């Protein structure tokens, strides 16, 4: 069983996406590839003002085995009453900083309720952004400060690129997801990262799911490490 923490329903406005409006097709596609659990967010969350609507849509779409990561933002007070195992934070898209006092207040409250905080570092390669939607990635320094301020929180970084996964080395409460991480030598790249803090993610449907699967399967990783990344770490994190 593989647990994919980076899946989404809904429409990404810059792409003609597979499975748009058809979550059953998405989950069938994942299941065919051995992915029978995971976390799902809504691609509409970065751009829609009505997060209640987006979260309701997400709740309807998600199937058993998958956890909805409801979108929250510090200036929308629905976070105070939200019931969830995981939430999605979009600091760059929603135009706030992780280190703002309001953000920390929200995050502390959510963490105290054992809700896992997913930080969306980016949704796509910055070089290919729409000319009128150049949303920067979340600064790594902000993530470090956020993690320092919230040592009890469980924080998951989605769509890490380059050295961002190394944040996990300095913070035991930070987990890194790897759909956008593609070193030539995966085994070597992961050797210096904490294996207990790495999570499998595919960024389906925006990315081909098989890319994330083959990247790990063909890297000749130690079987224990592969099992941890595929599902073991997630099983502990979302329990």
């Amino acid at each position, binding site marked *: 069983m593989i647990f994919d923490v980076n899946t989404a329903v809904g429409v990404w406005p810059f*792409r003609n996406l597979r499975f748009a409006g058809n979550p059953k097709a998405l989950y069938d596609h994942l299941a065919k590839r051995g992915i029978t659990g995971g976390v799902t967010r809504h691609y509409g969350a970065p751009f829609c003002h009505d997060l209640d609507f987006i979260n309701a849509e997400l709740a309807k779409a998600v199937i058993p085995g998958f956890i909805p990561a409801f979108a929250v933002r510090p200036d929308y007070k629905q976070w105070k009453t939200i019931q969830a195992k995981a939430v999605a934070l979009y600091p760059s898209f929603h135009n706030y900083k992780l280190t703002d006092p309001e953000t920390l207040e929200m995050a502390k409250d959510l963490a105290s309720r054992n809700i896992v905080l997913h930080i969306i570092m980016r949704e796509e*390669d*910055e*070089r*290919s952004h729409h000319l009128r939607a150049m949303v920067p990635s979340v600064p790594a320094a902000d993530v470090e400060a956020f993690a320092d301020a919230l040592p009890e929180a469980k924080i998951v970084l989605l769509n890490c690129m380059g050295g961002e996964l190394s944040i996990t080395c300095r913070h035991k409460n930070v987990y890194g997801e790897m759909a956008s991480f*593609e*070193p*030539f030598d995966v085994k070597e790249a992961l050797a210096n990262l904490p294996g207990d803090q790495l999570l499998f993610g595919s960024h389906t449907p925006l990315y*081909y*799911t098989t890319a994330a699967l083959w990247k790990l399967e063909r890297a000749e990783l130690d079987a224990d490490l592969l099992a941890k990344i595929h599902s073991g770490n997630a099983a502990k994190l979302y329990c």
Partner: protein
Amino acid sequence: MIIDIHTHNFERQGTAPIVEGAKRNGIDRIVLLGDVLRHGYYPTPEQIVKINDDTIADVEKYDGFCLGFCHLNPSHTGEFQVQEMRRVLSKKNFCGVKLECSWNCRKPEMDPIMEELEKQDRILLHHCWYKTTGKCDEESDPSDIAYLARRWPNVTIVMAHLIGCGIRGVEMIADCPNVLVDTSGGQPEAGFLEYAIRRIGAERIVYGSDAPCRDYAPQLAKLEEAEISDADRELILWKNTERILKI
């Protein structure tokens, strides 16, 4: 059968891991495009010669598995370009010229290279991207490639990086039959390959990985998962490359 038309023999990594990684992923032949970033975007003539000498040595060492391309910086004199092309392309298993970001391909300094390619019936593989951020001064985008292709309709051009060029990039070169696009690089975003096949046909798409800037496995996975016919997959994975490289 799989032929990877876009790999690099970077000095700092060595060529052995590139070759071994390809074999481990079921790839039968790879094209070495040279250590094109070793000296930045503007290598001197001496640096160009050294880069090409290294590729020649690698192609000889891995005879039968590696093919080679000649790297150039088009800002150098036409005389040097032609001399270097003749020197490198006369070697066994060398197939064409690779250009990076030294000189925008609309500029007339491209002419001696294109003329020689036409004369020798070899191909050009050119870096290309539609970048919103981080664009280099001389970097070519698909509209530049289309401009070049129309000026030199008898030269086959491979426009690198389908994902980076995107839908708009495919549109730009759609009416340039001498332009193919390679699948190398970029995140493994779904849908671009299917779009390109619909728009320009599978005959104009070739598989490439951009290893070691990228990893073979996820780059091959794009071909595996894309909703395309087996016949189109074969064209992209090796038949088209075999055709245009005449191997």
